[in-house]
């Protein structure tokens, strides 16, 4: 059983990395560059990533831009509705540390609301930078096995039960 673990995990990671579907949640002005990234000039759909409408069928959130206090509640609710394994990309200077509006009284730092995998600097970042971030996230999923960590527990429990019974 153990010998099947590694190839199954590799297939799961490879499949997840080529189907990172971001949810339609536009937080602020970098949403314009997100719309351009999925447009014909820099078609990111060829990397397998399709912006989808419902939170329950997607596995990525791309936080673009400034997150205000009202939007932070919506972001948390959307993030909780997504099934595991899920990933978050923080796009723009406002997602890193507030950006241009660093001392505003209505802004929330996004890393206090949801855990973030990748950050992209820029204001707004060029669409090529967003494509590079998606590509880097794909490589990270495949190398660090971010999507298949659950399979390890399942297979090793099966293996232990067989050893105890025999």
């Amino acid at each position, binding site marked *: 059983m153990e010998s099947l673990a590694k190839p199954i995990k590799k297939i799961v990671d490879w499949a997840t990395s080529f189907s990172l579907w971001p949810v339609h949640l536009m937080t602020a002005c970098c949403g314009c560059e997100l719309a351009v990234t999925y447009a014909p000039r820099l078609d990111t759909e060829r990397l397998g990533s399709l912006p989808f409408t419902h939170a329950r069928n997607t596995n990525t959130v791309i936080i673009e831009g400034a997150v205000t*206090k*009202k939007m932070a509640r919506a972001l948390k609710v959307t993030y909780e509705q997504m099934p595991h394994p899920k990933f978050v990309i923080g796009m723009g200077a406002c997602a890193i*540390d507030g950006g241009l509006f*660093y*001392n*505003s*009284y*209505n802004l929330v*730092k996004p*890393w*206090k609301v949801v855990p973030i995998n990748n950050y992209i600097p820029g204001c707004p970042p060029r669409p090529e930078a967003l494509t590079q971030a998606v590509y880097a996230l794909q490589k990270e999923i495949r190398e660090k096995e971010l999507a298949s960590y659950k399979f390890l527990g399942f297979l090793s429990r099966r293996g232990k039960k067989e050893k105890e019974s025999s």
Partner: protein
Amino acid sequence: MTASKASEVLSRGTIRGKDGALVINTTVEELVNVARELKELGYTHVVSITAIDYPQENKIVLVVHASLYEASDDRPKVVEIRTELNRESPVAPTLTGVWPSAEFQEREAYDHFGIVFDGHPDLRRVLLLEEDFKGVYPLRKDFVVPEEGIEYKEGWGELRG
């Protein structure tokens, strides 16, 4: 007809030299009457309702801009009505009876400065959340926003948060 109407408009206030707006200074009690007269003269909608806070002189000045569409003569395009309100509890009559386009602008003035408009159909905060900002009106001058200085501060260069 148009010439006399244009001069009637001009007699209400003074023209400001820099931008050509007609400035009318009035009191809180006369505000709705002035608005009604301007509407008769053809100014059909409100462009902006806002306020300026002068804490040293202990007053809040309510500034209303009104304008018109498709003017036939060369009367001033924008009219500015200024009123002084008490800073402790600013109260003003609503203009939604005269100009329906004032609805969201007055909600924003309440949101930012705390000015209560008597008779507004639906006065609640429009941009900020009530539970986060209860009783706090951010655009007043005593609400201070922290600013980074250019001198070196203790702990600069370390990871924050």
